[in-house]
């Protein structure tokens, strides 16, 4: 009977974490993934030699390719970040020349791709609990968790109101000249915030009702497994090698 009640509702958290379950990265400990990826990003940020920056970019792209996170999803996310990457690259290009600009593009792209693979290959709550496990201040990990929940609530409310609008024949708002449509959309946005604030209040009271003060404690603490250690060791080696080559420590 219970199984019959479990239906395949595809709600937003499921969609967001969909790729984490498809990738082998999803099975690794979040702490190992965060530590390894952040080490790689820091090492890449220190690189100035073009060949090393390109090597880092190739490593990032290879990491994305073997992660089994769908490339279309990564590409979409990367395109979202691209304007910021371009702003940084173009400003360097204007002041330091074409190749420096290209270096900046490759360096930031390498970091962004590695971080996108980390974010897509890890369930959001695991990512936050991984941060907590790495001794990031509890206030920060709790705030991230609560913010994520608020964003989900906001998305839910927006979806409901959009459906309600369409159900009553609203088709406007597709043009900036459609003043009525824009008025409807702006009042919807206002209502979404009011309703989401109400629901967020309920959600917070529900947390308080179960003894929540300021910290989300995990039910179990897990130990790093061999695969987690291998993942960290690989990134530690690659990052150290890149930095050593940059500093000229390796001939």
């Amino acid at each position, binding site marked *: 009977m219970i199984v019959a009640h*479990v239906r395949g509702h595809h709600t937003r958290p499921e969609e967001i974490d969909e790729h984490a379950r498809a990738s082998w990265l999803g099975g690794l400990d979040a702490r190992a993934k965060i530590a390894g990826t952040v080490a790689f990003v820091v090492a890449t940020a220190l690189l100035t030699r073009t060949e090393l920056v390109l090597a880092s970019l190739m490593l990032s792209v290879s990491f994305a390719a073997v992660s089994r996170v769908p490339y279309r999803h990564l590409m979409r996310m990367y395109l979202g970040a691209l304007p910021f990457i371009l702003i940084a690259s173009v400003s360097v290009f204007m002041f330091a020349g074409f190749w420096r600009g290209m270096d900046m593009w490759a360096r930031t792209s390498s970091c962004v791709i590695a971080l996108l693979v980390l974010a897509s290959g890890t369930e959001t709550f695991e990512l936050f609990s991984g941060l907590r496990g790495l001794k990031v201040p509890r206030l920060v990990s709790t705030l991230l968790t609560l913010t994520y929940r608020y964003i989900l609530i906001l998305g839910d409310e927006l979806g409901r109101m959009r459906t309600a609008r369409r159900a009553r024949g609203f088709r406007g708002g597709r043009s900036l000249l459609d003043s009525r449509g824009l008025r409807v959309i702006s009042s919807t946005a206002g209502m979404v915030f009011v309703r989401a604030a109400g629901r967020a209040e309920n*959600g917070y*009271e*529900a947390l*308080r009702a179960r003894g929540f003060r300021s910290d989300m404690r995990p039910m179990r603490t897990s130990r790093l497994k061999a695969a987690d250690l291998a993942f960290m060791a690989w990134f530690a080696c690659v990052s150290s090698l890149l930095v050593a080559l940059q500093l000229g420590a390796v001939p």
Partner: protein
Amino acid sequence: MKALEVRALSFAYEDGTPALKGVDLEMEEGEKVAVIGPNGAGKSTLLHLVAGFRAPFQGSVKVMGKPLDERSADDVRRHIGLLFQDPDDQIFMPTVEEDVGFGPLNLGLDSVEERVSRALRSVSVEDLAKRKPHRLSHGMKKRVAIAGVLAMEPDLLLLDEPTAGLDPRSRSGLIGLLRDMRRTMLIATHDLEAAGEVADRVVLLNGSVAFDGPLSGLMRRDDLLDAAGLEPPQVSRLFRRLRGMGYGAQTVPVTLDQGVAEAVKLMEREKGRSGDRGR
């Protein structure tokens, strides 16, 4: 010691709209009380107020002998398990078992894993422990939310519209679960049938307490039912109609079992009467 003592409780919303006026309510340990009333009667407000989420208020509230005020609210809440009307407001963690363990971990209780499996077992969802709560049906979410409250082993359960939004099978399953649970419960509901099945007595709230006693007693008070805009359960309506047709039932049943018992008595009486006429 009383599980709950509410004396002359009055509360108004921030805009000044009165929600509760001079409410008195007492509950013994182990008692199940349903707070019934129409929408906007203040049922949920009363529950949230007892849980320390609405302040300031006039009057006094004591939970397990502890007076409630803004400073003692966190301490008083350790005795309380509040079930929210919408389980999506309550369920938070990525898996069912983590969500059920959320309260005990926060309260620093011991044997958390044991508590979690006990709570899941008590609402018959132990198979769902590793599931993502967001993928469950509304009825199952309600059960998970109840498990999350039970895992804290509170002295007083406050249930806000537990049967709202459930399909008939989930509803009757949940009613059976609550009926068989040996807990002190204050249930806010407008589902009179559920109140009849689960609660030992009902409190009719319409801003203030209009009635406090057994549901069958309230079923005889048409004036109160009309004033509160409440519809009696189907089985009560059937027997009221039969009474109007001259088939006098001795009591007004509120649950199906009571209705069956009353119907049997009625048929036997009618059989005896027609036998007398035959002689």
